[in-house]
């Protein structure tokens, strides 16, 4: 396990994607403010660069996708197979419980996303782009739509952008309430007017067979928002902002029982202790930290005894058998019943299961029911084994990263709370079973 050698100074923390909205809160969403603060200069510069140079620059910056999978953005781009009438799809279907960063980026600095899309389109020779915004985000979608219209009226989108020979059209597409559409192949199906069911990979890797079976780049909002800054500061300076293995900044969405929840743009490499106590103000008065989810509802939980001084990077979190995912940190104090919390998480996955794969469709339902009976005092000793057995049928051997029996990771995500509570809180589960229900009520 990697432990942080030295704390990173919080006072000096660099703001990249939230800088403009922090310095100019009243009008950071307008094209006037955007351009007055250096906006659209990098898109113009990108027009003069070759595709290869753009891809290499983003590769060199070390930028990892910010949607959850943390895959190299530059590598993803380099996979885009010819032929290149291809598409760009920006994933703004932010729905992982605990995550609310893209909402802020879209509402407060939408032109940054538009400029990032222009750069991505140039790097991948894409002329048609879509932004898939979750249905529950009409306000972020309105702001983005307004920015897109402003960009069109300035000649930054449409035919011959910035007076060049390059065309780029952008369509803002509203979802309709389905978490699974955040999975990139489900999103593509949804955008094609189908049910939002994930496709099998292989062969349906979006870079090869994506939207309308054409090569397609799917990038998260935050990933896209970083691009103008990478061009502006260069790969080396961008890398220097963060951790050597995990460059740039990262948006953490912190929620739950902390004093100051919210979105925080931070470099990687802090410790969880710093994040929870220094950044988020610590646990609310009269309570102590019990457990936290380090990277969204899909991630296995961490506990104070083992993980507080762990370094926050993709690798260190992975070595500790969890993930940073979408950056959603959900903190639970000692008032939390872990059985009830786990049931609430599992209920989410059960509700959002698309139903294609039996282990997920049936398994998540059973996990929710068994947790419910334990919580309500009808649990039996064998129920812990039942939970683990059902989980094993979704995620073979309960390994991390999961060995899936399903098309997509949604099913195995529902197993994370089960792994967590049986590993760290078995006594509390048994107290429910033997004490006729929840001891905290």
């Amino acid at each position, binding site marked *: 396990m990697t432990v942080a050698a030295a704390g990173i100074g919080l006072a000096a923390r660099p703001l990249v994607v939230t800088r403009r909205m922090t310095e100019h809160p009243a009008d950071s969403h307008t094209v006037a403010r955007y351009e007055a603060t250096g906006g659209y200069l990098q898109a113009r510069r990108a027009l003069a660069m070759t595709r290869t140079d753009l891809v290499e620059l983003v590769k060199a910056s070390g930028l990892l996708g910010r949607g959850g999978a943390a895959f190299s953005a530059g590598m993803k781009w380099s996979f885009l197979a010819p032929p290149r009438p291809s598409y760009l799809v920006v994933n703004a279907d932010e729905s992982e419980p605990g995550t609310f960063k893209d909402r802020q980026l879209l509402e407060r600095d939408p032109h940054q996303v538009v400029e990032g899309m222009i750069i991505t389109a140039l790097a991948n020779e894409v002329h048609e782009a879509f932004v898939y915004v979750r249905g*529950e985000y009409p306000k972020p*979608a309105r702001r983005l739509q*307004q920015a897109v219209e402003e960009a069109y009226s300035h000649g930054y989108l449409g035919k011959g952008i910035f007076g060049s020979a390059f065309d780029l059209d952008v369509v803002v597409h509203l979802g309709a309430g389905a*978490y699974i559409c955040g999975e990139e192949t489900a999103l593509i199906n949804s955008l094609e007017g189908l*049910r939002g069911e994930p496709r099998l990979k292989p062969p349906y890797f979006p870079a090869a067979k994506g939207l309308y079976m054409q090569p397609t780049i799917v990038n998260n909002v935050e990933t896209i928002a970083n691009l103008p800054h990478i061009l502006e500061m260069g790969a080396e300076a961008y890398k220097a902002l963060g951790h050597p293995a995990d460059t740039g900044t990262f948006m953490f*969405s912190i929620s739950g029982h902390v004093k100051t929840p919210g979105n925080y743009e931070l470099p990687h490499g802090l410790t969880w202790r710093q994040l929870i106590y220094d950044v988020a103000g610590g646990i609310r008065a009269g309570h102590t930290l019990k457990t936290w989810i380090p990277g969204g509802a899909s991630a296995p939980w961490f506990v104070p005894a083992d993980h507080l001084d762990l370094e926050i990077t993709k690798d260190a979190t992975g070595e500790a058998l969890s993930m940073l995912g979408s950056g959603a940190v959900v903190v639970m104090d000692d008032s939390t019943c872990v059985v009830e919390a786990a049931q609430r998480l599992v209920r989410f996955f059960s509700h959002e299961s698309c139903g294609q794969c039996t282990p997920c469709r049936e398994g998540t339902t059973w996990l929710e029911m068994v947790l419910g009976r334990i919580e309500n005092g009808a649990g039996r000793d064998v129920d812990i084994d039942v939970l683990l057995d059902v989980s094993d049928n979704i995620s073979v051997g309960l390994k991390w990263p999961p060995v899936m029996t399903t098309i997509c990771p949604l099913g195995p995500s529902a197993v994370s709370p089960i792994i967590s509570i049986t590993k760290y809180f078995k006594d509390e589960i048994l107290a429910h079973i033997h004490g006729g229900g929840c001891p905290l009520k």
Partner: protein
Amino acid sequence: MRWSAQTLARAHDIIATYPQKRSAVMPLLYLAMVEDSYLTEEGMRQVAELVGITPAQVQAVASFYTMYKREPVGRYLISVCTSISCFLLGSDELLAVMEEETGVPDGETAADGLISVEHVECIGACGGAPALQVNYEFVEGVTPDKARSLCRWLAEARPETIKSDELQALFGGSVSFDWAIKEAGGAARPIPAFQPLGTVAE
């Protein structure tokens, strides 16, 4: 009931923004809801005809997504988030208060058609938990008392448009992040207030 010429023209404009007609199914389903106030069989048939697929294929899509309401919904749709972050900070009590104050059980609509109440999964307002939406416009940091006031206000004031800033000022508390920028518009119906063609009039 066929759609008006104006709505049909709008539908064709939306279809034209996509490389393939079928991609317009989702925005057209919203349009169908605007036209009939919810998703009717006739509306789905109209969408099918416009994009060149069967009504069954349209139904398959419509039934996949929770926001396509295939039954009438109240003028004000109250969606209480009960996922993990809101749950940790009292969402279940909030939902109970809503049901009690409006007399509308979770998932149902009042007899007079004014208010619908539903619990929903994470709406992305976790930093301002517990949170809810009215006609998909956010209110964050809601206490049980404020929730009661909100219900009474909807019943008495019957606002034409649900504005997030107004709701937040009257009934909200802590927020996920500084909203900073005020908006003039809002939601006139229990359908997300978003125009896919931007400023083109409804």
